[in-house]
């Protein structure tokens, strides 16, 4: 187990370094001049030179890469070219809101998607199964920004149940949750459908297993069989995708944050990409990548924790 843990952490570290190098090279791969974009109509060759110097773009590519990686390891991600704020401060301000959005969306997806999948699996090919099938596919194929706009129209404009824009502050939790509700639902919808399909498939496979037949033979109640015995095994593939899911949700938050005018890494990236504000883009993408790596690591570890067969196989080996 310890060796596995060390290997996985080593891999995660390697991925992080690779991401940093690729991000440092991003400036030279993507077309567009950040200095002109930042300066806009007031751009002059003299000012462009100054901005390029400030961004370190006047140095050679290997030096830029080495500097970015070196500084990143020391927790220095540079300064926002426009506002002159440290990028770490911008990330510190935005990250908790993106994490709150991603985690609450994931929680919603789990809470609604898994029961929906179980429900569909109880009567395969029945009306309920078909209905949940249609619902799940519809949810999966609805982009979060479309869902977001409809939720805004319905619950912020027509019913006025939730605020249309903004983020709120953690110091006012009720207000914060009200601001979080619609974006979290918009982001979760696709994953509700995905989890429902995933759990249904796994459940159907597990329900055909011998031990389930034995459980029926013993006269156990359906509810106990489904939720205590079948789901416990059927959930393992779902847990495996949770890590990927959290990473996806962090990335997918981009559209939702922009539509709901929420603070977050997504909206920060969108604003910065347009102006080629590279220090901010690099810092935000690096943060998301590291969280993605971390979430996958945790998912892998929990997967092994949930499935005793893997531990047994490892011990036997």
């Amino acid at each position: 187990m310890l060796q596995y843990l060390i290997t996985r952490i080593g891999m995660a570290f390697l991925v992080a370094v690779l991401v940093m190098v690729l991000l440092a090279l991003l400036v030279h791969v993507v077309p567009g001049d950040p200095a002109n974009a930042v300066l806009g109509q007031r751009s002059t060759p003299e000012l462009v030179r100054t901005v390029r110097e400030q961004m370190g773009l006047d140095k050679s590519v290997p030096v830029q890469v080495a500097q970015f990686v070196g500084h990143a390891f020391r927790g220095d991600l540079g300064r926002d070219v426009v506002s002159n704020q440290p990028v770490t401060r911008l990330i510190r301000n935005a990250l908790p809101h993106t994490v709150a959005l991603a985690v609450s969306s994931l929680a919603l997806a789990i809470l609604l998607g898994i029961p929906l999948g179980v429900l569909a699996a109880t009567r395969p090919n029945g009306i309920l199964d078909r209905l949940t099938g249609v619902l799940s596919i519809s949810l999966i194929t609805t982009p979060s920004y479309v869902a977001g706009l409809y939720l805004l129209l319905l619950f912020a404009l027509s019913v006025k149940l939730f605020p249309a824009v903004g983020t709120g502050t953690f110091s006012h939790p009720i207000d914060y949750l009200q601001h979080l509700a619609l974006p979290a639902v918009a982001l979760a919808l696709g994953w509700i459908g995905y989890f429902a399909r995933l759990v249904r498939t796994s459940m159907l496979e597990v329900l055909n297993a011998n031990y389930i037949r034995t459980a029926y033979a013993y006269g156990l109640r359906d509810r106990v069989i489904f939720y205590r015995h079948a789901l416990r095994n059927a959930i393992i593939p779902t847990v495996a995708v949770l890590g990927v899911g959290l990473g996806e949700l962090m990335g997918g938050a981009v559209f939702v944050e922009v539509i709901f005018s929420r603070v977050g890494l997504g909206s920060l990236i969108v604003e910065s990409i347009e102006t080629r504000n590279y220090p901010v883009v690099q810092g935000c993408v690096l943060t998301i990548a590291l969280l993605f790596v971390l979430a996958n690591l945790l998912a892998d570890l929990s997967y092994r924790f949930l499935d005793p067969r893997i531990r047994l196989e490892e011990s036997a080996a």
Partner: protein
Amino acid sequence: MSEHSQVEQLVLELTEGRLDRRTFLQRVTAAGLSLGAANALAGVLGADSAFGSAGAAGVLRVRAVGDVQNLDPAFIPGSNEGAVLTNVYEGLVGFKPGTYKLVPVLAERWQPSKDGRRYDFTLRKGVKFHGGYGEVTAADVKFSFERTAGLTSPAIDSPYKGDWAALQEVRVTGRYSGTIILKHKFAPLLTNTLPSFIGYIVSRKAVADLGNDFAHHPIGTGPYEFVSWTPGQRTVLKKFEGYGGSWLRHVKAPIWSGIEFLPISVSNAATIAIQSGAVDWGPIGPEAVDSFKSNSKFRVDARTTLNYSWIGMNIAHPNLKDVNVRQAIRYAIDVPSILAAAFDGKWSRARSLLAPGMPVGYWKQAPAYKRDLNKAKSFLAKAGVSGLELTMAASRTAVGASTIAQIVQANLADIGIKVQVLMQDRSVFNQLGGDAQKNRQLFYELFTTPTPEPSFATEWFTCGQVNVWNWQSWCNRQFSDWDAEAVKTLDPELRSDLYIKMQKLWDRKVNVVWVAWPTNYFAGKKGIKPSLQPSGFYQTWDFRLT
């Protein structure tokens, strides 16, 4: 905290504008007060809010198109900051709200010399800076102007130092008096430099004390002082209790207890935010105008800006060197169709560079070229060109740009020119000089002119701007000389003649197709009367309730 003191605290936050009515009601009821009593309490306090009625002037919530980035007047990146800073700062002079009439603001008296190179000023006494930074003195004026001009030591690299290029020095002659001394006559001083944010007076002490933080903690003398900036969420201002009243000689006292700017970049989301009451007022896109106009709860205002958009032709490119080819393109492009499709018919057709609202230099008789395919084809035949292939670049974020590019593509196909559309990120589209300029052929661009100063519009098209912003690569010595002359001409009629001559000359050289003089639209609650300059710049501190 006891329930009683909790309610007291909430009442305080509500009256100071730190809470909206909705949040106030939630928290007061959570603290044990009945909803009815809480509602009554909010009513008695006259709380205005995004979700409540605008019956009394509480906090005004304004949609900002984007978040603020840098609130130092010497470095502000754009209009989002300008909208905030008009509440916080004041200049020696300014445009009276709603007009282009120049009036003294921080200046008590204001006297230009006969040769137009010296401007004596005397400040109003006792005007205080925010945050306890003391009284405004002539030394602050000197510091503010010379700082932006790059004349202080160490010099700062302000992108606006060109607007102060004519400044020799500001001579302080007394605690409240001084003289602005110019190297030469400089007409934009009174139409752009002094009345805009470039002429704002900052506190020398605050700049020194705050260092880098000054960019996010502005200290001015305006009717509202800066409270906080939460990145991506809001910029909060509150009424400055020690306001020196410089504007009150021209308009009534501001009414709002506070002003908040909420960044909402997506146009559709902004429409929903205004319609739902999450914000009280804000700029809207042309596509949302009709829905607001048809709703009696909202008021819509419009101002034709001094901005201009055009389809440019890079005459340095071999494909566009021949004037006959450019004539063919001019006659083939259907501008009215572009206006209808790209801007929902809500923007005016541009016929030349300077818009009708420009006090100096508007060319009233400028031609509006009609689409004429026969003429276009004959020009193309005269050029002896066939099977021509061109590229057309546009920024993907420019309003209507994609539609415009497609219409141009279809229009030019009608005369046998094949157009490849290149929709680009702003940073790619804005690349200056080098290969970017060499490869540029057709392009669609929109430039802003924030103040009623014609040279701000013409300066980009002079010889000195070739390989910078003059993407047509059109260098005409006469045009450039007239431009330089107009900047030093103080007589408005003579200036006007020069600018009209420049536009006529440009028109004969056929390297642009003028598209639009954009109109800015604004929507808000019916009871809010905005204060808008003729070009659409809004001064929220002067907004009123009707």
